[in-house]
């Protein structure tokens, strides 16, 4: 398949993309197909000659498969046939998604892609909610300690962060009120209980690195 890039017009465009729960929805006119491109959260997607070349490298069996295909560093595309509704199930978050209006003629194997300008809302960031559970570690005091009344040396909190698809180390970190350090959360710390020492008896506070699209919901 070859792509021909053409400026959008009032009868060929895609716009008003928005996130509704786990779906993306948009308005589109004058298309036979939708091209959806995914990239990093907070990035800007513009369809350039490089994108065109990246996609054209793939055979029609891949392009028309309706699956997400990686065509560059942190860039994925999916080419969907026009249906009754214009929506797409979000696969990965946090991420940036963009949609393009396409007219594909199979006889010539040519696809006209209408390139939007900044006025079109053709791309949006999709954030990801992360539910973090924190609870104080229950201390089982030994017999001797119970008799002597001696306190255990350290306090710990048990933190549980669920698995996050596409997560990379440092996307989240924890810190404490009054502590100057930020501890990166590694991939290995996800999906299992992690034991974190208290800071002056204070529980750790989860934070996401600025602008990476994670929304943290704390459960204690």
């Amino acid at each position: 398949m070859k792509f021909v890039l053409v400026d959008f017009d009032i009868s060929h465009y895609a716009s008003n993309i928005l996130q509704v729960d786990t779906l993306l929805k948009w308005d589109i006119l004058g298309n036979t197909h939708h091209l959806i491109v995914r990239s990093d959260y907070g990035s800007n997607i513009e369809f350039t000659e490089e994108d065109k070349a990246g996609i054209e490298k793939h055979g029609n069996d891949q392009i028309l498969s309706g699956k997400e295909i990686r065509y560059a560093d942190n860039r994925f595309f999916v080419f969907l046939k026009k249906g009754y509704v214009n929506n797409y199930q979000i696969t990965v978050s946090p991420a940036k998604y963009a949609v393009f209006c396409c007219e594909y003629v199979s006889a010539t194997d040519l696809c006209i892609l209408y390139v939007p300008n900044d006025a079109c809302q053709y791309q949006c960031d999709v954030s990801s909610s992360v539910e973090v559970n924190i609870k104080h570690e229950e201390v089982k005091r030994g017999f001797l300690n119970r008799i002597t009344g001696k306190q255990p040396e350290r306090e710990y909190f048990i933190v549980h962060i669920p698995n996050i698809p596409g997560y990379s180390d440092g996307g989240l970190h924890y810190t404490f009120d009054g502590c100057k350090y930020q501890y990166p959360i590694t991939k290995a710390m996800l999906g299992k209980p992690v034991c974190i020492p208290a800071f002056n008896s204070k529980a750790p506070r989860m934070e996401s690195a600025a602008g990476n699209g994670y929304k943290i919901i704390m459960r204690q």
Partner: protein
Amino acid sequence: MENVKELIHGSIGLLRNNSISSTNFSRPYYPTCVVYFGRRSAEYHEELLENVLRGWGGNADYIKFYTIEDVDARTVKDALSGNDISVADVKTQITDLLSAQNVFADMARIALYCIIDTTEVASAEEFMKWYSMITFVKETLGVSTLSMLMVILNESLQYTELAKGIKNQIRDAYLDESLEKKNYHLYDSVFIFGNRLKNGSFIKIGPSENRYANYNLLADIVLLTNTRCDDDNRRRAHLYGSDKPALTAAYGFVQKPMAEIVMITLSIILNKLKELTANQSVDADGLMKALKIDKGRSEVYDQFYSVIKELLPSNEFMNWLPGKATPDRTFDEYNRASDGCLQAFLEKNHFEVVFTELLNRNDLLVKEILGLLSKQLNAAQLINGVPTGVRETAYDKAEIAFGTPDKLQVPTAIEMKVKKHIAEGLRSKTDESLTLAINKAEKCMTQFKQVCSEHERMFAVGEEGTRKNLTAFYGERIQRYFNDFSKLTALFVSILKIDNSKADMLQILLKTIEAFFSSDAVYKLSFSEELIARLGNVDTEKRAQEFIGQELIKNLDDKVSFYSMHVFQPRVFEAYLLNTEGTNNNLLYKYLNDRELPPEVSRTFFNTCNNDMAESIWFYVCSVDNLSL
């Protein structure tokens, strides 16, 4: 110093055997004023002043030097500063000059010397305008003068017509009946020195040639005509007289061949250096030495670490890492226990500090590393570049000490990891510094080659026979000096420092030549001692001095600085400028003084107290016929 010419001039100064004490300086008879006619004539100033200084010492400070650059505009400039000066200011300066006490024997008039080089004179008519300038000069000075016009006549073949025209103009000016006084000049004396000798051969006279050829004739005439001595009246009687159509002279000298000695010395030094420049390269050991990498440790890395250490998180951060491990375990174990949070923490904090500080201190670091490279590596080594393999070997060796920190205890491992990260970051800075060093090396080598080629161009001019004799005598000495290879290596390293400019190189060469000259007494010999030492076949002192005396007057009659088809009258006056003090000099003086003279010729001696050379000047009158043909 800007060029090799200046280096040679400076080196010649080191060979001088002059120890004139202030009591030996002669004193001027009249207050003195020199006026240069035209820009080219003014270029003789430096050399003239230097040579007069040798005779008069500090008394030369009283001489006033002016330049008139344009024959029509007649603007007067101070020849020393080059600034315009008003007629009123000239008068003020002359008044000051005439207020000097106990310097001059007679202040009734001023000895005025007007100097003109005809090379840039457009026509014979323009020359006459210059000739007539004396009226303006006299008005400007406002005092009575004893004036002399010194004409440096360019008779090179392309100037033949002009030279002939000028000679004829001088003749016509002399014969001019409109001046009422027939056979009389506007000057008290007119001297002509041509670059074509009586015998038809040419000599080089010019502002730049004089500086290196010891052509002191102009200054000698100032000294001879205006120095207080027993026979000063007699000298003036011979050298002045506006009733003479013109005067000229034959000039001879015997000197220590200082320029040649310097040229030969320099030639051998530069050749030795050039030989060393071949096959120079940088190997891993050399690079490590330059970067101060020793036993797997690098000073630069350590230094950077100590600077940024304070900015790194303290080890207390480990208290709140996930997991329950204790820091007495290895880094690897602790990291695993913390689910990789320890390593991630380092990357986000420690390595970030390293990254930021590498960025902040980029210029400083590059400069610091460049400084290390400049100290150890010379331009000839760097000019061929430093292969990647050599760089990698050096860098790798610098990182050996960091080993595998994962197996070390946590605090030590953190330090090692940070240092290793610094080392990795500094590789690119070192590469950057090497590129800068190589660029500098290229510039430095260009400068060095320029010095060599300038010298070669100058060395190409030289008399083969004399040079052969001198090379045998002096070349061997410099060769022997550099048999001590460490001396040559030290010079090589210092001259090819990549920061060196051409001026730095010339300065280093001058210092080397100075050290070399002072290592051998032969370089401090007087001109006669030098000649005896070099010729080696003169058995007695008396005969040596006689030999010098003969050299001084040999064929002098053919060396009259004036070309004429008409026959010359015999010389009228002989002058010898030499050091008349000391036993050896007395012998020379005696030899010259004892020579029989034709009855119409008289002679004088001028004590120069100068052991570097002896000069002979024979004076001739140019007849009207000489000026015509």
